[in-house]
């Protein structure tokens, strides 16, 4: 597998085949691990970081999931490629902005992505389509247990897995779910829902943007506490809350559909109209309109389009993706034109 293969193939979770994938885009489980006896990444010497990389790589090479994996060293990547991996959610911005001995190992179908020498020696993540934290945890455990047998994790019976930042100590686990909540946003009920989630020690973040406004009506909910609960408890907890939110969103959608059908259809078809006919379109406008069209597909108001295509469009209209598809660097204006072109092409072929 090469980097450019990633451009041709879609990540498994984008296909939208998972449970509740109309409202839940993806589920993710991340484990933070460190090797015993070596300082954490930011405090380690160059030689120690190299040692971590070498040790981890050889442990991964003998794991079945990574037989055909793509192993990339950050300092050997061009800026656009690093940005491309960030857009695909395969690496964090932190890893992309560093260099020496930072690397990522991406498994076949992009199910696993293991970062080396990020904030911790190992940041391992698993993505699944829809609401499927159970499966994500199961897969993560499989790889984690295999690596634990080959490496020597920094672990303590009281503190659990030792991490660079105390906010991750214990299970070292961050479970998160990406949600699409257009109806709750339109019904102006999303703030209330989010505030009650925050009271449960869960973190909520708007995606594709900073601040209180979540562009595209996307939200990411994750656990904040990593110590004192088992991995299964964290997943069960989160899953329970997400189920509630799904019910709320579904209820809000049913409400819109029965009480404001005409206004809703108007909004959806206008969005579809702009997307399929514009010659110039910004990133923000794309995300906002795609979000409404996605709702339209979910509600079967738009019938000649599938979720996979919409999910793909969210990803490939991002800046680095556009430039890789075009094969060269593009300035913002050129990107806005290329973006409109790609959207039109994708919508026409359906």
């Amino acid at each position, binding site marked *: 597998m090469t980097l450019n293969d990633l451009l041709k193939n879609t990540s498994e979770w984008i296909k939208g085949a998972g449970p509740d994938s109309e409202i839940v885009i993806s589920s993710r489980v991340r484990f933070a691990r460190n090797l015993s006896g070596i*300082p954490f990444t930011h405090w380690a010497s160059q030689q120690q970081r190299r040692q971590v990389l070498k040790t981890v790589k050889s442990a991964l090479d003998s794991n079945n999931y990574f037989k055909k994996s793509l192993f990339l060293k950050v300092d050997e990547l061009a800026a656009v490629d690093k940005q491309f991996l960030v857009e695909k959610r395969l690496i964090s911005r932190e890893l992309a902005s560093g260099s020496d001995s930072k690397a990522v190992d991406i498994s076949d179908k992009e199910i696993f992505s293991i970062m080396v020498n990020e904030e911790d020696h190992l940041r391992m993540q698993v993505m699944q389509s829809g609401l499927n934290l159970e499966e994500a945890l199961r897969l993560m455990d499989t790889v984690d247990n295999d690596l634990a047998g080959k490496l020597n994790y920094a672990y303590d019976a*009281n503190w659990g897995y*030792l991490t660079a*930042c105390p906010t991750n100590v*214990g299970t070292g686990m961050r479970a998160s779910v990406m949600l699409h909540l257009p109806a709750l946003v339109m019904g102006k009920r999303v703030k209330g829902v989010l505030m009650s989630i925050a009271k449960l020690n869960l973190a909520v973040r708007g995606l594709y943007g900073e601040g209180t406004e979540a562009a595209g009506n996307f939200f990411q909910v994750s656990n904040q*506490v990593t110590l*004192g*609960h088992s991995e299964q408890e964290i997943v069960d907890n989160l899953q329970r809350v997400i189920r509630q939110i799904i019910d709320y969103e579904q209820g809000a959608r049913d409400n819109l559909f029965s009480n404001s059908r005409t206004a809703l259809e108007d909004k959806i078809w206008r969005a579809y109209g702009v997307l399929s006919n514009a010659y110039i379109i910004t990133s923000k406008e794309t995300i906002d309109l795609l979000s409404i069209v996605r709702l339209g597909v979910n509600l079967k108001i738009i019938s000649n389009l599938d979720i996979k295509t919409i999910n793909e469009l969210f990803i490939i209209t991002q800046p680095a993706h556009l430039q890789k598809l075009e094969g060269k660097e593009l300035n913002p204006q050129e990107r806005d034109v290329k973006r409109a072109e790609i959207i039109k092409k994708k919508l026409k072929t359906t």
Partner: protein
Amino acid sequence: MICDICHSNEASIHVTEIVNNQMQEIHICEECAKKKGIMMSPNFGLADFLANLTDFGLPAEKQALGQKQLKCPGCGLGFEDFKKIGRLGCGECYTAFKKGLQPLIRKIHGNLQHTGKHPEGAAGYSQETASLTDLEDKLKKAISDEAYEEAARLRDRIRAIKNNKDENK
């Protein structure tokens, strides 16, 4: 009102400090005031006073002030460094800065005991115990190699960990 220090005598000395609209009060009895040789001069600062009370059994946060000068023997990171950058230096830091970290971790997670999975064969693995065993082995070797300076350093580290352990029982 009971003395904030001994919690037994009646407090007869009350100190109130107001700086930038923030008020801090402390109430102590004559005995404790005499015992600690507390100076009641006009330039008396409450912060300095509290900073010197680390051995009075005050709340953990104030006790952590005594951790100021602490350095991790494993990687050399100072507790003050940690407070500035927000990241620890190595696994041993969790043992070295235990007293200072406990209140922080309790605040973040509401818990202090890991209840999740563990690497196979490492269920009861304690960072402290492992460090001790490792250090004791190193001490024996240093003595047999006649590296007495190194041996003295190791002996001090072992002592520090054992003291830590006893205090936290």
